């Protein structure tokens, strides 16, 4: 296996045009990122009331993780430092808005407006000092501090990370705690070197039952399909249950679909508005997940 990308070059250099395309053309990577994002969504534990939320995808890259957010019916804003990755996200018609930015410089967002954040395979990049002006501790502080401020009280942030060492995990986690987050690390399949995945599950606001860290999958070291988190999940959900309206409605009821979008785009064009051309990605079918 090639050495960790994080130690090869800064992210905006490593993810150049060639690497960004390679990354996004690999069906293996697409599948892995989708799985990680699904799990992050689950750990985000948004209220199950069918209302789309405004989410952040930090280090959104070419939009693979964002696709999972869209498939679950949510609106999102993605931030990435690599213009090449963002170009591919445009090509794939990512449904979220994209920002070119460096999370280590802090997020320029108003306080309390974001309903949740995910970050898939990105935050470990902050532990490197890629420029002489970079001080990882300060960059982590700027990042977590600004994230804490822009999240609504009670909102969660879930980061799937690949820390290089225990020290790195500690550094990330302690920076988050110092910014005011509660939470901890969830490890799925801790006994499998291949399937092992780490998620930082953080919540914003005073510690409460809902900020208890859920347990990981396959903690007993049994098969990778074993899900020991069932009980914990149910407990967390039933607590937030009390605060949500009775009416349960599923997100993403098929929708009007591609036909509708193409027709609407045509109408807008005829009105003389500037409307982007159609492509195979336009209003592509979403997986029906309910």
């Amino acid at each position, binding site marked *: 296996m090639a050495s960790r990308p994080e130690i090869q070059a800064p992210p905006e250099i490593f993810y150049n045009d060639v690497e960004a395309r390679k990354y996004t053309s690999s069906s293996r990577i697409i599948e892995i990122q989708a799985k990680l994002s699904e799990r992050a969504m689950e750990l985000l534990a948004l209220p199950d009331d*069918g*209302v*789309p*939320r*405004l989410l952040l995808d930090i280090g959104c890259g070419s939009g693979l993780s964002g696709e999972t957010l869209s498939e679950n019916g949510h*609106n999102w*804003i993605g*931030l990435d*430092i690599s213009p090449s990755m*963002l*170009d591919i996200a*445009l090509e794939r018609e990512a449904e979220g*808005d*994209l*920002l*070119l*930015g*460096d999370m280590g*410089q*802090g*997020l*320029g*967002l*108003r306080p*309390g*407006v*974001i309903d949740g954040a995910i970050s898939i395979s990105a935050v470990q990049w902050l532990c490197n000092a890629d*420029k002489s*002006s970079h001080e990882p501790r300060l960059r982590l502080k*700027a990042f977590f501090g*600004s994230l804490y401020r*822009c999240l609504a009280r009670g909102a969660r942030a879930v980061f799937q990370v690949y820390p290089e060492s225990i020290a790195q995990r500690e550094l990330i986690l302690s920076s988050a705690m110092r910014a005011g987050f509660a939470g901890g690390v969830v490890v799925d399949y801790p006994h499998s070197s291949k399937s092992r995945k780490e998620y930082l599950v953080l919540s914003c606001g005073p510690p409460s039952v809902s900020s208890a860290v859920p347990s990981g999958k396959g903690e007993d070291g049994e098969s990778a399909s074993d899900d020991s988190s069932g009980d914990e999940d149910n407990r967390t959900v039933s607590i937030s249950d009390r605060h949500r309206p009775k009416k349960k409605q599923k997100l993403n009821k098929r*929708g*009007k679909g591609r036909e*509708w*979008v193409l027709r*609407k*785009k045509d*109408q*807008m064009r005829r009105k003389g*508005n*500037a*409307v*982007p051309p159609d492509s195979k990605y336009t209003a592509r079918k979403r997986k029906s997940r309910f």
Partner: protein
Amino acid sequence: MRLLTHNMLSSNIKGVINGFPLGIVVEKVIEKPVEMNPDFLKNMFAKIEWKALVDASRSMGYTELPEQADSSMLDSVDFLQRFHHALLELHLEEGALVCPETGRKFPVNKGIPNMLLHEDEV
């Protein structure tokens, strides 16, 4: 970039105290139709800075938003449609966002605002 995002963004240049709202320099606006979701709009409404949305939509050439809005208007389909259009269908494709305090421009190309700060702005 949609005005939903514009309404959340604020300049985080070092030393800037009130970085909101960012000014908008328009070179090109495009429209992308999306289905309206009243639940989303109702949920978002409380978080929207209305005046900033009205001003931003004007600068993008859309003048159909009422000057003032309160949550009782969310029962009107007509209002929801205007709110939806302004918030989610208008995109700043080319232009810039401008820090209200320093006048620093963040260029927007292919719909993507470049929010990267220079080293002396961090």
